[in-house]
């Protein structure tokens, strides 16, 4: 057997609570419903995303802070862990095959890296042509990148992570959008292995039940290394 498949570490769910105290965080902010945010996380720091009210999709892309051509790669991450779900212990790899972050705590247990981000254009395909004039994650990404003007553009909007979303693949090869496994107060925490740009759209999708038709805020915390 090949080295990759026999070392598969992927799992459907792995719960792990954090020992970090929010009182010690160097950053602690509310990320309002439906909005984008772009910020830096340094190597060694730990980022926590809290699903405050439950089943809110946080659509996240990571970039190497010092090289815009290195970004989070869903395919490298899936290949190197041998499966699709992200949970405690999952290493998030870049397109260069380097570890960007490791998930160190997770009280939700399962996150999606296949479903991507919503866009006005894909909404016209998925729902109806007349759904084009609505908020979307990709427009959120683009306005954050346009204002930041740091050299990242639409070509860098690669397949993202959907924290707190449950998108199973069946044995028959169908993609499902299943009920969430998240709930109020559940969180995921990851430690950075390199200096990063973190681009998040707090998903404004109103055409499907991924956010229970009610997008809600999340909380973002960052800790320095112990």
């Amino acid at each position, binding site marked *: *057997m*090949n*080295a*990759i*498949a026999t070392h*598969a570490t*992927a*799992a*459907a769910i792995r719960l792990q609570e954090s020992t970090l105290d929010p009182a010690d965080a160097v950053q602690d902010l509310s990320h309002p419903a439906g909005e984008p945010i772009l910020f830096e996380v340094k190597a060694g720091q730990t980022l926590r995303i809290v699903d405050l009210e439950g089943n809110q999709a946080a659509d996240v892309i990571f970039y190497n802070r010092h090289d*815009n*051509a*290195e*970004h989070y790669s*869903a*395919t490298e991450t*899936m*290949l190197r862990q*041998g*499966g*699709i*779900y992200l949970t405690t212990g999952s290493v998030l790899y870049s*397109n*260069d*095959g380097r570890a960007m972050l490791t998930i160190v705590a997770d009280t939700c247990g399962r996150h999606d890296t*296949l*479903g*991507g*981000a919503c*866009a*006005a*254009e*894909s*909404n*016209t*395909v*998925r729902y*109806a*042509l007349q759904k084009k004039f609505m908020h979307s994650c*990709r427009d959120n990404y683009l306005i954050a990148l346009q204002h930041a003007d740091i050299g990242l*553009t*639409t*070509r*860098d*909007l*690669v*397949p*993202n992570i959907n924290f707190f979303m449950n*998108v*199973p*693949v*069946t*044995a028959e*090869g*169908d*993609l*499902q*959008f299943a009920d969430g496994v998240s709930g109020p107060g559940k969180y995921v925490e990851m430690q950075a292995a390199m200096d990063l740009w973190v681009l998040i759209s707090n998903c404004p999708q109103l055409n499907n039940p991924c956010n229970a038709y009610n997008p809600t805020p999340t909380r973002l915390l960052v800790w320095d290394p112990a």
Partner: protein
Amino acid sequence: MNPTETLDDPLKVIPANPLSTAPVDAPSFWQRFPPAALAGVATDRVMWSEIMPGGGHWSWRMPRGSALRFIALEAGTNASIVLYAAQEKLERYNMPDSLKAQHTAHYQRGHVLMSDMGRSMASFTADSLGWHDPLGALLDAELMTKKYGEHRFAAHRNTMYRSGKDGLLIEIGKYGLSRRDLIAPVNLFSKVSVDAEGRFAFAPDHAKAGDFTELRFDMDVILAISAAPHPLDPAPDYAPKKLGLMAWRCGAAPADDYCRAFRPENARALHNTDMLYL
């Protein structure tokens, strides 16, 4: 060209250079393909055909209304493909958008490959297999050396030892695209299923010699192909398999197209593409 000739690798059996009086050496390679793999093709309309050696790579600009049939010339062929809109290379095949719009984690006849702009770039118009892998895994040079060892040109020459990632990087580089632009490919002829734990299972006996699939291009597309092995292929030795290709002009998707009717999402994606060609 004698149609009874074997499927020799053009790179292993270096052909003689053409005579200066007949300088274009474009043999009808399709005549060497298994007859069953030609089903439904009006072969008198074939514009070009090719045998790509395992590990090889190339790229083409495929116009709207052209068709390309891919043929597994040996069991276990893998063809990694990426697609960019020729008129605006920022528009490109998008794995998540295509999968979620069609609620699928495999491709078969009827599915379409959608761009980030909500348009169908290409449609699966024929297929003998029923499952092609859209999960985008590629071998890179490092994983390839770990799995198969080191093979340098000095010893191996044109027995092409090159990872799928490097092959595709070379091809997209020809159009000014860099590693930040390399998208998740579709791995034609490979099957990767997912179990209840979310783990991958590679089907080792999926594609047989003579299996085929076909794309109709719905817009002008830059298509890059690598015939390197799938990264989850458990075969212990590096033995990439040959790929047959044949292209013809089929016309744009008609109103009663099978792919338009396959899902309402596909009808809307094809409509969005039609709006580019008013």
